[in-house]
């Protein structure tokens, strides 16, 4: 690969992957905070309200990180991908501008009211601010996924002789068949991250206080139990939606619209009739086969086409110039995502059962498991996006504009590396700061106490 192309790609991949660690948490927590506040308003139980305020503080930290790492994304379309922007701006300019007008203003205007306006607004109006911030963040997700969906499966456009794309139908762009499932899939992923984080902190409180017997109402363990009661069922619902119908439908779209990607993702080099589903194995691109494969016979045919004998095209049946350019990484990203997704369903289903039997808050092994799994939804979401984006290669816009033709011609490899290193350094520092401040909030907890360590509580 050309060096400049490599750095431009790495630049975007690094800043986008890092950025998305935070929006997934805020979009997930946003929903959970709304649910907590709504329950608090409905039942009059002050603990739900206090729990919402506590998660609001974590949300605030994550939101700031999302904002500051998000602005560079909007810039990079132009700075590093100028030819892509020139060619597609007539189409994706719509969704990018709509995100600003309909989402960013809503979120940013109500964020401060949500974070600091509790006393001034009272519980009902404050709930309204929480809803506004949550809705804003989900609308933002919609427009950005719409932009990505256009790149994955371009619809609603025309192209002139110079390769400039123009919008032909806004409704088609906003109801792209690819978009519908991808959006629900992405949002479910965010909800899993949010609920796992809430449940894991709950498990941590219960384990830390070792109060596996009696729990005092209003104590930290009591909040731990409350977090599990909210996080586990919401997470379970989201993780089921993640697999079915959204994951299933998305895979079907990939098989239909991006067949070489589908073959690469599944590690299917030779066309199979029927084709087996690979669970584990390492792609060998020299000999074009999978080492140590562990396969379920005919399962891929069935999952994709709902027929046990269906034919699934292998990677070698497509011209090599249309293969995704990093098949092993794509294959691993996809398998890690699916593997983790399956583990989440299993763990959350078991936890939900124990919750129902009122055993979860006393079951140490389950609590340990939930707590230790907390980082994994972030990994699974990142792997999901890597599957989407590596799978889109070698195209910027699938079938229309090649990635190598989308970079900024005037920006040299050296300049791209310069800013890449700058972002790496800055994001490392930001990550340490975020973890440090989030740890303080979690250690401080939702229980009102005498410590005035946490700034926003200085009232």
């Amino acid at each position, binding site marked *: 690969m050309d060096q400049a192309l490599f750095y431009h790609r790495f630049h975007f991949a690094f800043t986008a992957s890092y950025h998305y660690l935070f929006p997934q948490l805020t979009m997930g927590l946003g929903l959970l905070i709304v649910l907590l506040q709504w329950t608090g308003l409905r039942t009059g139980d002050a603990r739900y309200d206090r729990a919402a305020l506590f998660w609001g503080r974590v949300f*605030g930290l994550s939101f*700031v990180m999302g*904002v*500051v*790492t998000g*602005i*560079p994304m*909007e*810039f990079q*379309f*132009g*700075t*590093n991908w100028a*030819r892509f*922007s*020139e*060619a597609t*701006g*007539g189409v994706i*300019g*719509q969704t*990018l*501008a*709509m995100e*600003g*007008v*309909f989402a*960013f*203003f809503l979120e*940013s*205007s109500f964020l*401060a*009211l949500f*974070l*600091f*306006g509790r006393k*001034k607004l009272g519980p009902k109006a404050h709930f309204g601010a929480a809803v506004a911030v949550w809705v804003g963040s989900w609308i933002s997700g919609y427009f950005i996924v719409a932009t990505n969906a256009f790149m994955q499966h371009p619809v609603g456009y025309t192209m002139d002789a110079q390769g*400039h*794309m*123009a*919008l032909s139908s806004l409704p088609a762009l906003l109801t792209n068949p690819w978009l519908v499932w991808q959006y629900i899939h992405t949002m479910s992923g965010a909800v899993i991250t949010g609920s796992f984080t809430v449940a894991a902190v709950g498990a941590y409180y219960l384990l830390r206080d070792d109060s596996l017997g009696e729990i005092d109402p209003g104590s930290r363990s009591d909040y731990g139990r409350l977090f599990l009661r909210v996080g586990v069922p919401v997470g379970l619902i989201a993780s089921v939606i993640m697999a079915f119908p959204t994951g299933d439908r998305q895979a079907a779209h990939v098989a239909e619209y991006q067949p070489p990607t589908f073959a690469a993702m599944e590690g299917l080099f030779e066309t199979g009739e029927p084709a087996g589903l690979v669970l584990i194995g390492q792609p060998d691109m020299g000999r074009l086969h999978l080492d140590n494969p562990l396969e379920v016979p005919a399962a891929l045919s069935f999952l994709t086409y709902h027929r046990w004998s269906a034919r699934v095209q292998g990677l070698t049946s497509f011209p090599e110039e249309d293969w995704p350019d990093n098949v092993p990484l794509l294959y691993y990203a996809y398998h890690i995502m699916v593997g983790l997704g399956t583990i989440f369903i299993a763990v959350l289903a078991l936890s939900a059962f124990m919750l129902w039997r009122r055993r979860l808050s006393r079951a140490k092994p389950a609590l340990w498991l939930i707590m230790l799994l907390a980082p994994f939804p972030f990994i699974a979401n990142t792997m999901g996006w890597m599957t989407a984006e590596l799978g889109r290669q070698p195209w910027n816009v699938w079938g229309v504009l090649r990635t190598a033709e989308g970079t*900024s*011609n*005037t*920006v*040299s490899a050296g*300049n791209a590396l*310069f*800013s890449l290193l*700058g972002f790496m350094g*800055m994001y490392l520092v930001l990550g340490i*700061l975020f973890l440090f401040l989030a740890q*303080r909030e979690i250690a401080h907890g939702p229980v009102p106490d005498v410590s*005035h*360590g*946490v*700034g*926003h509580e*200085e*009232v």
Partner: protein
Amino acid sequence: MASIWFWLVAALLTMYVVLDGFDLGAGAIYPFVGKSDGERRAVLKSIGPVWDANEVWLLTAGGSLVLAFPKLYASSFSGFYLPLMAVLWLLILRAVALEFRNHLNDVVWRPFWDVVFWGASLVLTIFLGAALGNVVRGVPLDTNGYFFSPLWTNFTTQGERIGILDWFTVTVGVTSMLALVHHGALWVALKTTGPVNERAKKAAAWTWPFLLAAVALVTVLTFHIQSHVPRRLAAQPLGYVFPLLALGGLAVSLWMRRRGRELYAFLGSVTFLAGMLLSVSFGLYPMVLPATNGAAASLTVSNAMGPEHGMRVAFFWWIPGMVLVTAYTAFIYQNMRGKVDVEGEGY
């Protein structure tokens, strides 16, 4: 259609400068108007609820630019690569400093973020002006309408390899710093009481004569550097209304500040900034990025514009969308009207 979008994007950028301008300006004088921790928190509280929404105007201007002038977006963002990366880092540092400062009450933590917040704000006020200066002066565009500007070369405004920083753009940068410091000082004065209020007024008073001189100088220099501007004003004398508006705003800000009418003084500064930016937009039109290597190479409204249908469609959602935005913005400013309450919630 393209002309309408030219003015819409110009309006969005003007809104950005008017709104984010006051929080940047407040940041640039922050450690001087707020001496104690409580006073500094008062300054932060005056901008805390709105800085993020203010920055969204820039993002929305960017998004609208992609929509209406994809060629201009592609060319200018890649050509101004290095300063834009610096702007991004400064915006990140500034936002993080503002948001993280009050999480810890610690004698090492808070002064550190204070310096970061001040420094990043100050440098940004200069960079925004230098960016404007680059657009006015123009860049050497290749036959495809692209370029790449080094940060600085020999500080002259002509030749093959013009830098981002030259004597003209630095002058515009300093003018912008003065304008935003003045703007920010009037905002802080409007929102605070006691010593902070007095120091902010003093800062505005000190800045005002320098700002007037800088504006006069920059105007003369602009006529000299970008000959399109005087030609355009000569052809359409109605355009003089914008510089007159700016001058009127600057005069009002002085007059009202002296009479102690803080709100009107700030609004005078708003008018001044809007007048300046609209003057530049009017003076450059129909150019959107002039070429220094012959006017024929310039990017203009017609050769940088995107597809017509998209621009027409976007109207249908842009107008109701911006009505909503105006409503939230009005609601937020209404909600935080009056002087900040240092003891209450937030920042």
